[in-house]
């Protein structure tokens, strides 16, 4: 799952000499929060976020009697941009981007090639879209929660029991640490006949989870 399959390639960017007033307008008009700053040959110079602009605004108001808008028109993007932002390469993966977003607490990364030219941008929105797709949420279906021993072959038994009924899978989520030695498996099944699936699983000795207990997070159970 390489980033270049999910990134936005039609990137809206700014030049270093652009005023932050204009940058703010471009971001508002396009509904974006990250504006890569590039030179004429598309080399990435930095990135400006809507937050950078908001932070720059009070000092603009204080610094000049001529009104905030005038001063905003004077400040250039290069003065407030983050130089050397964290970037990713097109051949890194979605998982890389996901983990890096969590680590750096950042909502988007510019995607640059080996020579530092901007190829695209990957944002939390691109990841969300991909994961909504992976979960199969666009297909009519229903989730079932099952607890199994954390042993090889456990998953196969579940898949076999469900497949026997001719039911197809939209996705399967696994919470690896549910409780000591147990994992929770959540198949998203493309059927309305969920009662039949539950009956089959119970008859095969599986323990079904109370829906009110379902959780995808790794929380210690009390």
């Amino acid at each position, binding site marked *: 799952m390489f980033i270049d399959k999910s990134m936005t390639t039609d990137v809206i960017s700014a030049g270093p000499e652009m005023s932050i007033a204009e940058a703010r307008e471009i971001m508002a008009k396009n509904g974006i929060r990250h504006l890569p700053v590039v030179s004429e040959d598309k080399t990435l110079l930095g990135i400006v976020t809507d937050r950078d602009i908001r932070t720059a605004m009070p000092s603009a108001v204080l610094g000049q009697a001529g009104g905030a808008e005038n001063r905003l028109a004077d400040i250039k993007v290069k003065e407030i941009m983050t130089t050397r932002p964290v970037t990713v390469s097109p051949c890194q993966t979605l998982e890389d981007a996901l983990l890096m977003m969590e680590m750096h607490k950042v909502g988007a990364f510019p995607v640059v090639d080996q020579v530092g030219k901007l190829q695209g941008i990957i944002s939390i929105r691109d990841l969300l879209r991909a994961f909504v797709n992976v979960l199969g*949420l666009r297909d009519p*279906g229903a989730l079932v929660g099952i607890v199994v021993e954390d042993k090889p072959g456990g998953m196969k038994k579940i898949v076999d029991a469900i497949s026997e009924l001719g039911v197809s899978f939209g996705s399967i989520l696994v919470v690896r640490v549910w409780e000591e030695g147990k994992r929770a498996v959540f198949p998203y099944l493309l059927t*309305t*006949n969920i009662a039949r699936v539950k009956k089959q699983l119970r008859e095969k000795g599986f323990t079904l989870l109370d829906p*009110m207990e379902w959780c995808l997070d790794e929380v210690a159970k009390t």
Partner: protein
Amino acid sequence: MKKTGILYDERFLLHKTGEGHPEIPERLSVIMRGIEEAGLLSKLVAVPVSEARMKWIEKVHSPKYIHRFAEACMLDLGELGDPDNQICPQTYDTALLAVGGILNTIDMLMDGKIENAFCAVRPPGHHAEMMEAYGFCFFNNVAIAARYLQYRWNVSRIGIIDFDVHHGNGTQHIFEQDADVFYYSIHEHPSFAYPGTGREFEKGTGPGLGATLNSTVLPGQGDEEYMHKITRDLLPAFDLFKPEIILVSAGFDAHAADDMSDINLSTQGFSWIMETICEMAERYAGGRLISILEGGYALDVLPELLKNHVKILLGLKEEQTELERKSHVH
């Protein structure tokens, strides 16, 4: 007592779904037996059944899909698109008759021959999309009914209430851009139940924004939560919309005895919902209401549920409580 129509035909039993499938002909047989044994059948006006004209079905479904459905039945392919949608050679004809009967019900109601009606039909309809069968549903009965009211009878504000435990994805999608058809559904929260749509933030699109409303109920909940959400969401919405007629997607799978969901509505809970809907029909629509069967699979409770349902349509609720009070005294 109201002039209440009943739509039923033994040919609705000819749609067979095979072993292990809950949407079986017996559902209708036990429902009709329940209504008859309560002495209600003779109080109802029978609606004649005939095949629907294609032009009305095409107001909702694409000709390509209709053709695919017809062909799959003719060739006895066993299922349409997904094993959920089991078909037999008679399924297409049964679905055509169900829609035709519903359109006849509308004609009788609009002509003043009946005041309201219950349509005991199979297959159900609310999951069926314009171009796809889903969740045991092939033709979206209630959606075709609404379009027929719009185009044949020029009704300008139609309210649909769907209390099946599953969200009526098909009905919502068909009308999500239509400001003149208000779709309200109350169902188990989509993160826990089929089909995964009908979240509370889904409110219609474009000109239809605000004419779709979803109330979601968490697993384990029942009467109290339904009363709370219907009072909070549906009553004020219909007070603003003021439907000229109400169509009900009447599903009974939210009952505690029905294992298709984790929702625990009681028999009395269903009566409360139907009484509330009938009161709204009186208030805004001159009593005009057509209830169309969707899901409901617990054969042991269906007779009682539908007996109560029809009794409420007939306006016999008071008498019944009177009767029960007397029987308690003796």
